[in-house]
């Protein structure tokens, strides 16, 4: 490459990272391929993240698209998240009552339910449900736009696709996940209490006062706010998978699947780190 070419390569803002399709069985057969693919994927994700960050913090801001995405990620996920939270509340209620009865600790039921739902299950279930619904949606939508050259058309119209498509979706996921988690927690507590009262009457006021007695903000705020990180993971991974798609309809399907699988996997792995972080810094 001549000097001009080198300068161009160094200073040119790279287009959406190109992807070398990593064939997993082939990669396993050749161990070097798996390692290469692993680092290539994370390297491209890093470049993509940097492009999105740069686009997100510089004007013009895409407020209208952000509001549309807040509605898409938030309002439209609410029924599903509420239902999942409600189901989890009932399950925890049934399990907790049975376990606590065995140890003669039935009085601990409200606190067990409150802590289990808000600290553990509510955030993870919300993350996984949103990952399934929104992650697949974003991955498939952007992949479809990519293979039909709509993303190229946006770029050719002098509009930054990282700003319009990726930053708005990622930000919407970050902002909406904590709110959806609160909704899931609320539904879980409500149905958990309801399931308990069917067996052994307990007033809602008594349930709440007993469940939250001695609780501090540190007990509930960090587990709820950590879902913003889940939102970042879901948005980032699904936008990345969508915007680097190649290969027509099969590529779109692959992008949707990979978005859900990878976002869910990273979300669970992140939870391990975040739980430890919260235990250390918000005891």
């Amino acid at each position, binding site marked *: 490459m*001549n000097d001009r*070419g080198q300068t*161009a390569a160094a200073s*040119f803002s790279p287009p959406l990272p190109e992807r070398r399709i990593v064939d997993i069985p082939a990669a396993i057969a050749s161990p070097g391929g798996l390692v290469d693919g692993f680092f290539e994927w994370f390297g491209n994700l890093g470049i993509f993240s940097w492009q999105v960050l740069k*686009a997100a913090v510089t004007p013009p801001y895409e407020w209208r698209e952000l509001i549309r995405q807040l509605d898409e990620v938030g309002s439209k996920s609410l029924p599903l998240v509420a239902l999942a939270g409600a189901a989890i509340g009932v399950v925890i209620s049934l399990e907790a009552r049975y376990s606590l009865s065995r140890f003669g600790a039935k009085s601990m039921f409200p606190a067990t339910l409150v802590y289990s739902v808000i600290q553990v299950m509510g955030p993870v279930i919300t993350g996984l449900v949103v990952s399934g619904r929104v992650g697949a949606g974003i991955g498939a939508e952007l992949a479809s736009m990519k293979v*039909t050259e709509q993303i190229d058309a*946006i770029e*050719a119209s002098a509009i930054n696709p990282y700003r319009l498509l990726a930053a708005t979706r990622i930000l919407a996921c970050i902002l909406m996940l904590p709110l959806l988690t609160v909704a899931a927690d609320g539904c879980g507590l409500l149905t958990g209490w309801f399931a308990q009262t069917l067996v052994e009457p307990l007033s809602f006021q008594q349930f709440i006062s007993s469940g939250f007695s001695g609780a501090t903000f540190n007990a509930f705020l960090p587990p709820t706010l950590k879902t913003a990180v889940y939102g970042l993971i879901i948005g980032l991974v699904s936008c990345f998978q969508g915007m680097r798609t190649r290969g027509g309809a099969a590529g779109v399907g692959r992008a949707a699947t990979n978005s859900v699988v990878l976002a869910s996997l990273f979300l669970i792995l992140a939870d391990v780190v975040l739980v430890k972080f919260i235990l250390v810094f918000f005891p």
Partner: protein
Amino acid sequence: MATAYDNAMKQEAATDDSGVPFVAVENLRKVFAGRAVLDGVNLSVSRGKTLAVLGRSGTGKSVLLRLLIGLERPDSGSVCIHGQDIAGLALDQLGEIRKRIGFLFQHAALYDSLTVAENVAFPLQHHRKEMSKSEQADRVNQLLAEVGMEEDLEKMPSDISGGMQKRVGLARALALEPEILLLDEPTAGLDPISSGEIDELILKLQRERMMASIVVTHNLHSARTIANRLAILNEGKVVIQGSFEDLQQSDIGFVKEFLKQS
């Protein structure tokens, strides 16, 4: 070959108002997977002129257009738009150049979640914020009327034919009143009548707007109709560039074969 190219370049320079071609490509090289799709391509187009780029499938014609608008970056060589090399520009700087270029994609690439009118309004909403909504709507109506699509404002792209999609794509490409128009296979996949209509439309726009245009096409008849000059690409190189008569008089084997088969 060199004579025809040199003549074409002299002709371009003589007809350019400012002395600087709107589009100038020098020694452009682009490699994909170890294969040089473009290898030392030189081209230039001035205001009011149209260059048609012909060649076999897979010879890098569409890649050339993508390089011109910065959707791909060259491995070496330069792409100058209004005298400015775009290869070294950041994405937002490149945006300023792109506002002056209209691009019609091969399959129109309309936004499938937006109506016809919204597709054309899309660049205006982002780059003409000083225009009121009613002014934008008037502009959209005017653009769609220019391409004969004023009756289909509220239709979705999936509800209109390929030819109509190309027309809408052309209206969208013209929304920001570009000085340069890049057309990727504007008549591909269309019946002869629709092809002729698109050619007429492009000619009309050239007469009215005096843009510098580059048209990639397989259609020699269409190229003769709309272009002042033709260039034939083969194995990543421009084998000849000039008027249709220059091509006819060429003794290059590939050019003779190409004209014979077209």
